[in-house]
């Protein structure tokens, strides 16, 4: 079976002001199967957004890459060269964090669909309208009342639905959603999450869901990759990861999330994520880890199978191959 997205040793960095490369993503191996909702969870600076940009093919030109990235078997990143022809916008689409910026403010929704579909497959206005209706309905919007509206006339939740509909209309198989709900109110977040779940059922969409919100991830995701300081800390089935976090960082994330109605003491972990460009030796979580020992400082643990299909990058789990 072909994997929707697969990366091997993917490294992505940005040139800083001194023309040094700051690695934002430091060797990531991802395997996302078709029809899966794959969550990438991490804090700011963990490199999760950079991975999203890489998969959707919109890395800025000053980004530097190493390793390999495949989308449906097509090699899109190979070392320094990147080619997304026939992939970007066709196989993979992207919805940005803020729904407002994903839509052109000067075009009605109908026109946005028309422009996208015309450039993709030369649709006429009539065809585009029919398509738009179909996808708006699929995204839970009423086409009659939204097709002739400008983005600013829609509420935040509706804008995000429209952005999803527009992304779907390209016929893409993979949807990369970078924090699609963080600017929305709580009840809207849930609706968008439900929408993604429904779409997965209906059109077998593969969703890469980037978020910092472990709770929301637990609502939608099948599998989760926890990122810390540019590396994967833990990969596994979401439920299992949340139930029994193996990596100390994952268990920290679970510990520190305030949950409604459960008044547990928030466990306080001191320290902050390392800054980009800080030293690369040893485990990136070393400074904050309660279980650290001497080996952690010396050598960086690699992601390896811990149990079942759980992969953990931590010396606590023997780091067997």
């Amino acid at each position, binding site marked *: 079976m072909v994997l929707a997205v697969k990366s091997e040793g993917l490294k992505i960095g940005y040139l800083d002001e001194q023309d040094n490369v700051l690695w934002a993503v430091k060797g990531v191996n991802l395997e996302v199967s078709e029809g899966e909702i794959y969550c990438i969870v991490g804090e*700011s600076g963990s490199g999760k957004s950079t991975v999203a940009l890489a998969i959707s093919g919109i890395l800025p030109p000053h980004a530097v890459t190493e390793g390999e990235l495949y989308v449906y078997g097509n090699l899109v990143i190979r070392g320094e060269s990147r080619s997304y022809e026939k992939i970007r916008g066709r196989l993979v689409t992207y919805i940005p964090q803020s729904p407002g910026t994903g839509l052109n403010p000067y075009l009605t929704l109908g026109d946005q669909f028309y422009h996208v579909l015309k450039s993709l497959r030369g649709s006429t206005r009539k065809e585009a309208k029919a398509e738009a209706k179909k996808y708006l309905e699929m995204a839970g919007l009423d086409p009659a009342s939204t097709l002739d509206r400008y983005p600013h006339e829609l509420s935040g939740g509706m804008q995000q639905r429209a952005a999803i509909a527009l992304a779907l209309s390209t016929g893409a198989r993979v949807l990369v959603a970078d924090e699609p709900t963080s600017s929305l109110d709580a009840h809207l977040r849930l609706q968008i999450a439900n929408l993604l779940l429904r779409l997965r059922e209906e059109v077998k969409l593969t969703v890469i869901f980037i978020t910092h919100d*472990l709770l929301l991830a637990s609502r939608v995701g099948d599998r989760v990759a926890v990122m810390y300081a540019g590396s994967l800390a833990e990969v596994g089935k979401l439920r299992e990861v949340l139930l029994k976090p193996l990596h100390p960082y994952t268990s920290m994330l679970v510990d520190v999330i305030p*949950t409604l109605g459960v008044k547990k003491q928030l466990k306080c972990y001191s320290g902050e994520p390392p*800054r980009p460009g800080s030293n690369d030796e040893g485990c990136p979580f070393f400074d904050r880890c309660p279980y650290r020992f001497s080996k952690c400082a010396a050598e960086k643990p690699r992601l390896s199978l811990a149990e079942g299909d759980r992969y953990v990058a931590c010396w606590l789990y023997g780091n067997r191959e």
Partner: protein
Amino acid sequence: MWRAGSTVTASSKPVIELKNVTAGYYTAEGFKTLKKVFKPAITKIDLKVNDGERLAIIGESGSGKTTLLRVILGLLPPLRGDVVVLGEQIYRVPARLRWRITRQIGYVPQDPAKSLNPRLRVAEVMAEPLARTDLSEKEKAERIRDALRIVQLHESILDYYPSQLSGGMMQRVLIARAIVHDPEILLLDEPTSALDVSIQAQIINLLCSIHEKLELAMVTVTHDLPVAQYLADQAVILYRGTIVEKGPMEEIIAHPRSEHARLLVTSYLSGLNGLDRINRAEGVSAGIKRETQR
């Protein structure tokens, strides 16, 4: 501890009192007429914060919580109603003297990056609230050191510029700045929304300990119900400019009465579908103390 010009400190004395407050903004209506039309953002708000109380003002975007905050801070005169802060009708005081009241509110704004002047060192930022007090330089330095100790920052940070600090450190500096002059009220605007979850937990615990130590009234304006749960005992839920529910925090979470509060609570609860229920049923990683649960 020293109190900035405080008069009475009865334990149940209200420090903030809003009576029937309607406030909003004027917008130009129509292209030709330029007629100014009043658009209320909050209507008929009655609110009382007692000394030592922890109150959360909860609302989603467009609920009017920012307007309410500006009214309390003396930045936006209401159309109607009385705003009493620390026993004074704040809008009866001329704008240029209002600082005498407002400086007794320790205010922590929403976005730490926008709340620190990039050209001022931390030391200068911290000294600002003390500038117009009659403390000696030595006492001021002492207070700054105390405040930094409370927020668990090292003194060497005083020489730093904001761009050299991380988001969590900036937020700590802002909290230290808010409590350096020992205010009577701590007013927090979305204190954790710009922070990562692990830093968020640090800040929440810090704020709780500050409330215990300094015994001040703490008002948190937020959209985040789970965070509010930690930072407040009393809650007010705003929806479209009116208060739809008020009462003890736990009561509201357990039995929301108004429709909007119910929506809010359920959207967080079902949002956890996974984690929260897992939490309750099986316990997460070792070391979590679950004190209460419903």
